[in-house]
């Protein structure tokens, strides 16, 4: 905050030409940052290997089925209704697994769209694509 007001009071004392040069510099810094951010993103996307994506999706899928089936099996175990909830759980687990996968792939789709405009600070370079 304090730095900011300092800067503005200083810039009022500058001549017209200097202000122009400064804003030009600012623009150049911004484009450079954006370029850097883009290459960072591209790099992180490259790191996002096909095998990584496959592993990510398959674990999400398997986890959904295991969770649903396990829950059904537990209910059967407690209630003594052996095949009923196991089968229901398998079906629901399958649905949950599909939903897990859809959720992950949806994020993958947006991460390439929101390349430059949504997040402009340079910290964003290590976020979206690398989520493997």
């Amino acid at each position, binding site marked *: 905050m304090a730095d900011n007001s300092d800067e503005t009071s200083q810039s009022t004392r500058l001549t017209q030409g200097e202000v122009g040069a400064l804003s030009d510099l600012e623009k150049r810094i911004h484009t450079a940052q954006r370029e850097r951010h883009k290459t960072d993103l591209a790099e992180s996307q490259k790191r996002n290997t096909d095998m990584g994506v496959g592993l990510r999706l398959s674990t*999400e899928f398997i*986890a959904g089925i*295991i969770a649903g089936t396990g*829950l059904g099996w537990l209910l059967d175990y407690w209630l003594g209704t052996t095949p009923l909830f196991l089968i229901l759980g398998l079906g629901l*687990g399958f649905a949950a697994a599909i939903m897990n996968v859809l959720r992950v792939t949806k994020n993958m789709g947006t991460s390439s769209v929101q390349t430059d405009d949504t997040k402009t600070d340079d910290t964003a370079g290590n976020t979206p694509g690398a989520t493997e």
Partner: protein
Amino acid sequence: MAADQAQGGFPVDPIHQFQIQTLIPLDFGGIDASFTNSSLWMVITMFAVTAFTIFAMRGRAMVPGRMQSIVEMSYEFVANMVRENAGSDGQKFFPFIFTLFMFVLFANLFGMFPYAFTVMSHIIVTFALAMTVFIGVTLVGFAKNGLGFLKLFVPDGAPGALLPLVVLIEIISYLSRPISLSVRLFANLLAGHITLKIFAGFIITFVSTGSVLGIAGAILPMGMIVALTALEFLVAFLQAYVFTVLTCMYLSDALHPGH
């Protein structure tokens, strides 16, 4: 083909590296709580992280030295991760997330040393970590939002007749989180380390043929090992990163269940 030499089976047992060895037997009322090689490496990891962060920051220099800037970089890395994925109110949980990240990262990197034990290649370890995160995040969700946390399971715009089914599916999807979280970390490290050992075994098989062609052929798996080792270092970091990012995302769900 020198099938007769290799008849005794594959020269290296790729699973041997994951065996648990009891170092100090301990028994609490029938529960085996022995201090094993796995525990030893966890303790080493813990001490290494603590020593690394404390000693590197001892100078507290304005212009950081090499070690200090590594610690500062990891601090900023995790802080940004928490801010972007869990929001600014997630910053309260930074100490936990940072500890988690450093522990998993160091455990994975220690696993790259020859003769070291890869702690995260056992699903019970990763599952315990994932359950800690899962239970903690659920408690935070209920503590912050009360019963409003249950909104997480009710997606917007679901038709009334289908709502019970959708909520059930959402709950199962929520319960599958610790499973996918732990399986991903464990499977990546297990698969990577087994692959390394198998390629190492190929070298022995090649060389044991004794022929010039065999020894020359051993260069191929050797090159593979070099490439895979580099990949494993990347995986070690990436999996620690993925584990913590997902923790942040779950935390964000717990803090803002509305969306």
